[in-house]
């Protein structure tokens, strides 16, 4: 076992994993995290706490993870390279392990221009792939980036994001291969709406043998409203929303019901694709709906390992 985390156990025993995410508050209330943890605890194997997502200042991922640990839940810490240099990164990793975090998602981070502090200096001391390399070295060699020894173990299950819908399309699998080479253990993809395009990407992934080397969890974003569908189709870099989905949302009498239906269908479809080992449900500001989606997709109860 690399980390002994619940997520690692489920994936390495060949079971279909379910993860979700909690957005921390733009404030100091621990209650916000605790409430979301309560809602999601029985339907997920691990819970991501986002890291200043969209470059909007929120309570840190590490602190959110600690709050989940206090509830005996399993967090996935997210770390963007936008906001901290290698000194702070390695320092936070040591602290995270000491505080019980066992899963770490390594990300570039949305550019600061998108957020609520667009004048901030973006750090980007290292990139996300170099971060994966760094965490792997800390874990497997017990060494800091500079080669010095780390006292104690660094049991972390290393994750990264992948976007099958970004460009250049042919290069996306090569980039995944780079992440695998760097040492990534699991991938959570960007939200999938175009299942056909996703399965083409998965075919390329299998051709490279990457499905044997990394566990891929398919991202699913439940749509709450027509406005949300249109917004994502038009404005979010790297999300591909097919016309039929927008049309379904437009025609629906109950938008939320249709959104749940679509999410469940997507999970059922991607579950059948060879090489997909789990689902990562990103219910932005709609965490309450996740237990129902997991249940209707036939994924309850979650295995105890």
């Amino acid at each position, binding site marked *: 076992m690399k980390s002994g985390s619940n997520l690692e156990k489920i994936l390495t025993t060949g079971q279909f994993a379910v993860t979700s995410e909690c957005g921390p508050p733009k404030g100091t209330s621990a209650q916000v995290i605790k409430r979301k943890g309560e809602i999601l605890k029985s339907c997920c194997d691990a819970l991501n706490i986002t890291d200043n997502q969209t470059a909007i200042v929120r309570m840190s991922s590490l602190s959110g993870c600690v709050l989940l640990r206090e509830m005996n839940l399993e967090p996935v810490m997210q770390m963007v390279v*936008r906001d901290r240099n*290698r000194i702070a990164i390695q320092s936070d990793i040591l602290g995270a392990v000491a505080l019980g975090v066992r899963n770490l998602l390594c990300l*570039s*981070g*949305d*550019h600061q*221009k*998108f957020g609520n502090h667009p004048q901030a200096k*973006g750090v*980007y*001391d*290292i*990139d*996300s*792939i*170099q971060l994966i*390399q*760094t965490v792997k070295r800390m874990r497997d060699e017990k060494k800091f*980036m500079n080669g010095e020894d780390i006292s104690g173990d660094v049991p972390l299950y290393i994750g990264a*994001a*992948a*976007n099958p819908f*970004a*460009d*250049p399309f042919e*290069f996306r699998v*090569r*980039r995944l*291969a*780079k992440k695998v*080479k*760097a040492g990534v253990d699991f991938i959570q993809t*960007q939200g999938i709406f175009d299942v056909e395009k996703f399965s083409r990407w998965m075919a390329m992934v299998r051709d490279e043998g990457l499905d044997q080397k990394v566990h891929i969890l398919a991202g699913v974003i439940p749509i709450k409203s027509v406005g949300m569908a249109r917004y994502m189709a038009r404005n979010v*870099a*790297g999300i591909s929303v097919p016309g039929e989905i927008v049309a379904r949302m437009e025609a629906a009498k109950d938008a939320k019901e249709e959104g749940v239906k679509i999410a469940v269908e997507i999970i059922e479809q991607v579950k059948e694709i060879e090489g997909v080992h789990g689902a990562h449900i990103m219910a932005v500001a709609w965490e309450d709906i996740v237990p129902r989606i997991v249940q209707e997709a036939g994924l309850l109860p979650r295995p105890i390992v």
Partner: protein
Amino acid sequence: MIVAEQKPFAEIMEMLEGFQKILVLGCGTCVTVCFAGGAKEVEILSSLIRMDRKKKGQAVEIVERTLVRQCDPEYLQELSDSVGQFDAVLSMACGVGVNFLADKFSQAIVLPALNTRFMGVAEEHGVWSERCAGCGDCILDLTGGLCPVARCSKGLFNGPCGGSVHGKCEISRDVDCVWHLIYDRLKGLNRLDRLDEILPIKDWSVSPHGGPRKIVREDLKV
């Protein structure tokens, strides 16, 4: 070349408040070529300053002059006898020139008329864009000659990130994703295998982050 832009006129006039005898000093090199601070721009800005002061009923006396460059001591030396007579020197050079004037003439009030933007190229007449960030350790042999430090918004060494769509950067449709350009270029040159290697973590100590930089060539010193 260094590319700069004139500061908003109101900002310049605010800087000049209270100063009556002003030297408006242009530079004949980079800022001439990007039409920000050459002899012509000196004339225009001086005319505007006079008009503004006239409108306000305030006096001003402007001397217009342009040096070949403001970054070599030989040219700044031409000013040694006269600089003392001015209340302020409004330098239309890039930040390098402004600094050097301040270094050389400790008694002079030196003000910047320009905002220095970047090291870049003239894509066409009237359009300039950034190419080099002066990071101190060039890796262009590994990226097909296109610089991710200067041209990737996140300075990624192993891009593109997930925000690259249709060859454009996530920050704006007007910004090309340089990693997409690097990919296309290496593909065209049959050198795509270069991208399979993970580019190593950068040593930022030779960049501006490591402190102000200096080069000394003993073999050239007199």
